[in-house]
């Protein structure tokens, strides 16, 4: 009882243990390359998000609208299929043509299909925070990101160190939602394996856990904040990482007084926090770093944003990764869809939907 606080105080003094601001390296299967940066551009559109596939069409969101396009078309022309009063924060599609959308105000409703416009029961404490959806048979699995913040206020949720997310199952035929997992730190992605076990990406704890037990993570200690999970055609999964972790942010997260001042005095876009895009305003914070090499001091400013897509095998072990590095623009990858011959990726920060073809996936770009 007493040792805990003493241990934490010592750790804080030494910068060790729980107070360490160390980061896992990007090496092995997560070794940086430029595959995302050089991938084929499919569509240039502002802040695309929530890519899903119903077997015929690709659906994605753009602000408060849900759009779709035919992936086989050489020049995709997206059509708006629904527009809402609030920004769309998550989508799910089924082979029967049902598309369900979650909105920033917490509403979850049908965006296409026979029940278009119908609302589903809200989950968790209100206002609800739907961050990811998955249609699993006759039920809908919903990630409720946070009890304190709306989905688009994710930056607030991270900086407040919240861990109030949960995952729910809703029977599409009606009935009360059931909670599958609670106490999660911003659950942001869902995937079901062949045994219909639900895997959840937990952004603020940088890991993927099973809904059945979060004690033993399926994948832990990621170098960034994980977003959506998507099934891979050859088996396994794709994991989008929407922003990189940095020592500066890890340090700021420990400095609560500084955070309180920052919340009061600085616009959220300019917080020392991860971001979907960076380098677009001189007001953005920079983390100064330098290395002395051959007697010359070489400065740099690590980016707050990054583009990272990780290919996982069936056991959630990383086998390959695709990057847009600090000098790139295709950052903030939030969702992807595997079409077999290529993977479509939404770069929310880079305002683009891109395609990673088989050759790009097989390549080992420097």
């Amino acid at each position, binding site marked *: 009882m007493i040792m805990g606080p003493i241990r934490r105080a010592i750790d804080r003094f030494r*910068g060790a243990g729980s107070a*360490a601001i*160390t980061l*896992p*390296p990007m*090496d*092995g299967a997560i070794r940086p390359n430029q595959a995302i940066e050089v991938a084929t551009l499919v569509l240039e559109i502002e802040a695309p998000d929530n890519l899903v596939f119903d077997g015929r069409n690709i659906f994605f969101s753009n602000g408060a609208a849900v759009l779709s396009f035919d992936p086989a078309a050489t020049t995709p022309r997206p059509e708006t299929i629904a527009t809402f009063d609030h920004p769309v924060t998550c989508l799910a599609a089924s082979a029967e043509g049902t598309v369900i959308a979650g909105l920033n105000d917490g509403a979850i409703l049908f965006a296409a299909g026979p029940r278009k416009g119908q609302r589903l029961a809200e989950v968790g404490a209100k206002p609800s925070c739907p961050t990811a959806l998955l249609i699993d048979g006759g039920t809908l699995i919903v990630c409720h990101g946070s009890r304190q913040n709306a989905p688009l206020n994710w930056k607030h949720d991270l900086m407040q160190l919240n861990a109030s997310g949960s995952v729910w199952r809703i029977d599409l035929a009606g009935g009360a939602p059931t909670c599958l997992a609670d106490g999660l730190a911003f659950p942001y992605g869902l995937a079901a394996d062949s045994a219909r076990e639900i895997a959840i990406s937990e952004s603020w704890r940088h890991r993927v856990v099973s809904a059945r037990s979060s004690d033993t993570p399926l994948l832990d200690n990621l170098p960034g904040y994980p977003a959506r999970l998507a099934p891979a055609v050859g088996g396994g999964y794709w994991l989008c990482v929407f922003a990189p972790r940095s020592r500066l942010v890890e340090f700021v997260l420990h400095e609560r007084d500084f955070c309180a001042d920052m919340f009061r005095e600085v616009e959220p876009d300019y917080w020392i926090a991860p971001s979907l895009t960076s380098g677009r305003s001189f007001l953005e914070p920079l983390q100064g770093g330098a290395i002395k090499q051959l007697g010359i001091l070489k400065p740099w400013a690590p980016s707050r944003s990054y583009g990272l897509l990780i290919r996982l095998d069936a056991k959630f072990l990383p*086998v390959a990764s695709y990057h847009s590095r600090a000098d790139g623009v295709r950052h903030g990858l939030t969702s992807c869809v595997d079409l077999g011959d290529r993977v479509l990726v939404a770069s929310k920060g880079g305002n683009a939907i891109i395609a990673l073809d088989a050759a790009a996936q097989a390549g080992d770009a420097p």
Partner: protein
Amino acid sequence: MNPLLEMHGITKEYRGVPVVKNVDFTLLPGEVHALLGENGAGKSTLTKIMAGVVQPTAGVIQLDGKPATFATPAVALQSGIAMVFQETTLVPSMTVAQNLYLGEEKFLNRLRGIYISAQQFLQSLNFHVDPTATVASLGAAKKQMVEIARAVRHNARIIIFDEPTATLTPEEKHHFFALVQRLKGRGVSVVFISHALEEALDIADRITILRDGEHIVTDVIGAFDRDKIIRSMVGRSLSGELYRRREQAQVRPAGRRILSVQDLTMGSMVRNNSFSVYEGQITGLFGLVGSGRSETARIVAGAVKRDFFHGGEVRFEDRPVRYKVPAPAVKDGIVYVTEDRKLEGFFETMSIGDNMYAAMLARNLNAGGLFVNMAEMRRLADEWTQTLNIRATNKGVRAVELSGGNQQKLVIGKALLQKPKLIIFDEPTRGVDVGAIGEIHQLINRLADSGLAVVMISSYLPEIMNLSDRILVCRQGRVVEEFTPGQATEEKVMYAAVH
């Protein structure tokens, strides 16, 4: 040209077992003569006979055409024969300068004068060693430099180098080779033992090859290539096995990340070092001496401690760990096979069985209760001698009497006895002959194939290129580059290590 040194019919037996059999050897004035052979071939014994360290059982030695007997190393030194030993013979508690002038002290010594003189002498050899530093504080490479400097100081006519470059960086080796050329220019004859065949091909004028204590061939350098040398040394061709390049298609898939080193810091040796190690793969760690590879590995294994403040984090099996001593690391499944096997690897006066049993006790002190279980000890000795093909004249042989390759196998056996999940090999084939290198490489491959996470630290690039599934390059205390075998070339890896 008349030979400077001639040895005819030299035989040396230990307890009736011949280690050198009827060997003839000649050394010409001002030549560099490479003496090659597997460990146990009799090279060291032959050179020790030249230097008066051991006496031959039979045979004749002639110096300048006159019969000579070297009863002690001091007698040999007086005759102009100096030897630089593989094992350092320096006094650890004394400074570099004091070691250089050991045995030449006057009644009253002026330390400052000794330091200035030593500094000038070391500079003339291009050895960057602080003469005021205590020898114990020096790394293996610098100790070797001091050892070489001491031999050169005695103005010997014949200098015998036993594995002089094993611990030197490429730059230091370059200086060493230049030094050998300078000595040769002064008319000094050099006998040079090395396991790095390229070195012998680079600097020697003639090569003599021994196998199993017998003389196989002596010829001028032009008559040899690498394959011929290896065939003469081991009796079969191993070039393809030892020096092939690993293809991308042969790379083992990565398993679970078992070790994540994050921003590890220890003084100026390890600085913000970060890397991961995966199960079922060999992670090669290449770097020059002083790049912080061994120090990082020793921190991971609990042999040394990281910085108290902001020392970074080591995560083993996704759990932060901080070992103050190696025992808990061993219990968790991390073992470190040391680069300095003679000092840290085994008890040299104990037998294979004793050493193995001691390793087992390190894992579980209560395994044998209060008493030593002799049957268990014998079983361990038999089992591991067979498993690792440790070649010894008898079961009770002391570790110190084993050849370098077999000693290394003993150290590896002690490590494997701990049933590790992660095994770190630090220079696993340093001072090991080509035959044993092949066996050790096969063993390392087998360990990775069985799913173990293997880290292999090596300064020998062909070894790194041959074995590694991933190549990490260290420079100035951190990993600065990662290559896949498909991408790696010797030039790229070396460039990353130096620039």
